[in-house]
C-alpha cells in the first residue's frame, strides 16, 4: 500500500466555507442547525440552535416534537436538502459534514411527508 499524504488537497469533498471559518468562531463540538417549517408546519420562535455534533437526527426529531407541541399520534418528518429523511441514528456531525454549508446545517420539518 503506497503511503500517501492523507490530507492532500482535494481528497475531501467538503465545500469550503466562505470567508471566515464559522466552525472556528463556534464551539468545535457544536453545529448551527437551522430548523425551517414546510408544508404548513408550526413556526418556531427560535429557528437557530447550536447542537452538539454527537446528537442524532432522532434526538432533533424528539426535541422538535416537544417544541411544536406534537400530539403523541402525530408524526414529524425531518428533511435534509429538501430531499430525504435521515436515519434516526445518523449524527449531526455526519449530516453537517456531508450536507451542511457556510457553517450551517439546514433541516426542514413538517407533519406530513413533504418530499418523496
Amino acid at each position, binding site marked *: *500500500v503506497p503511503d500517501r499524504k492523507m490530507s492532500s488537497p*482535494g481528497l475531501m*469533498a467538503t465545500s469550503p466555507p466562505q470567508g471566515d471559518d464559522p466552525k472556528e468562531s463556534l464551539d468545535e463540538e457544536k453545529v448551527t442547525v437551522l430548523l425551517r417549517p414546510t408544508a404548513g408546519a408550526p413556526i418556531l420562535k427560535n429557528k437557530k440552535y447550536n447542537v452538539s455534533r454527537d446528537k442524532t437526527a432522532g434526538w432533533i426529531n424528539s426535541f422538535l416534537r416537544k417544541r411544536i407541541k406534537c400530539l403523541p399520534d402525530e408524526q414529524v418528518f425531518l428533511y435534509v436538502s429538501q*430531499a430525504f429523511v435521515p*436515519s434516526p441514528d445518523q449524527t449531526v456531525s455526519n449530516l453537517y459534514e*456531508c450536507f451542511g454549508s457556510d457553517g450551517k446545517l439546514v433541516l426542514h420539518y413538517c407533519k406530513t411527508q413533504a418530499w418523496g
Partner: protein
Amino acid sequence: MAEDTEVLREVWNGRIPVCFRLDSHELSSIEEPEPYFLLLPRMSYLPLVTDKVKLHFQKTVSQEEGDEMWFEYDDQPLKWQHPIGVLFDLHGNPDQVPWNVTVHFKRFPEDELIRCPGEEAVESLFMSTVKEADFLKHRGAVMNAMHAKEHRQFWLGLKNDRFDQFWEVNRRLMAVSSDPFRSIPYRIHQTDKPFIQEPVKPTTTEDEPILLSDLIREKIPHAAPTESGESTYQILVQGIQPPLTTPLQYLSEHFSHPDNFLHIAIVCR
C-alpha cells in the same frame, strides 16, 4: 457503470446462517421452544425476513407482557435499520456459525434501538437512504428522474430477493459514464461508536483514484496496518477483507449494499 455481473451476483447471494433462540427469562410455557434456523440474505433487513421467527416464538411468550420483537447478540441489541450483513460483520464471528441470535419480546431497549412499526417503516427508511446516497453521488438527479413505478420495482427487488429486477433500476444509480460520482456514499461502522459518514471523493485533484487504505488512514488511523502490514483490526466489506489498495469507486459500484452505501465494518480481532 458496474459491469462485473458475476461479482454483483456473488455479493447479492451472500447468506448468513442464523440460529434464533428465545431469551430464557422470557419463557412463559413449561416446554422450552426449539431454536429456529434461517439462512438470511446479507442484503436484507431483519424485519423483512423474521416473520417466521416471530410466529415460532410468540406462542411461548405470555401475550399480556409481549412487546415488539427485537434481537440481540452477545449483549448487543441489533439495529434493524442496518443491513443484516453489516450487523453480522460488526457483531458476529465468521468462525462461529450459525450466528446465535437471542430473540426478545420484553424489555425493549428504547435507548439503543428505534422501534419498527412495520414493513412500511423499513421501506421508507430504505428509500430515503438510497436518496441520500444519490444525493452524495449525483445531487439526487437519478432518483428524481425516476418514476414512482421504478422506485417500487427497486424496493420490491430487494424485498423479494430478485437480483434482475433490482439491478435493472440500480444500474442507473451506479452509472458513471456521463456523470462521475461527486463523492462516495460510505459508512464506517464500529461497535462502540456511531457510524462515520463524511464526504470523500473518488479521485484526488491529480485524478488518482482514492483507495480504501486512504479512507481508513484518514478516518480510523488506528485501524490502518503498520508499515510491516500488521494490524489488530479487520476491515470488512460484505464479509471479506478487500485488498486495501482497492479504489473506493470500484468498491462503491460493486460492493455497496442495496441502499447504495458502501458499509465498512472495523472490528478488533
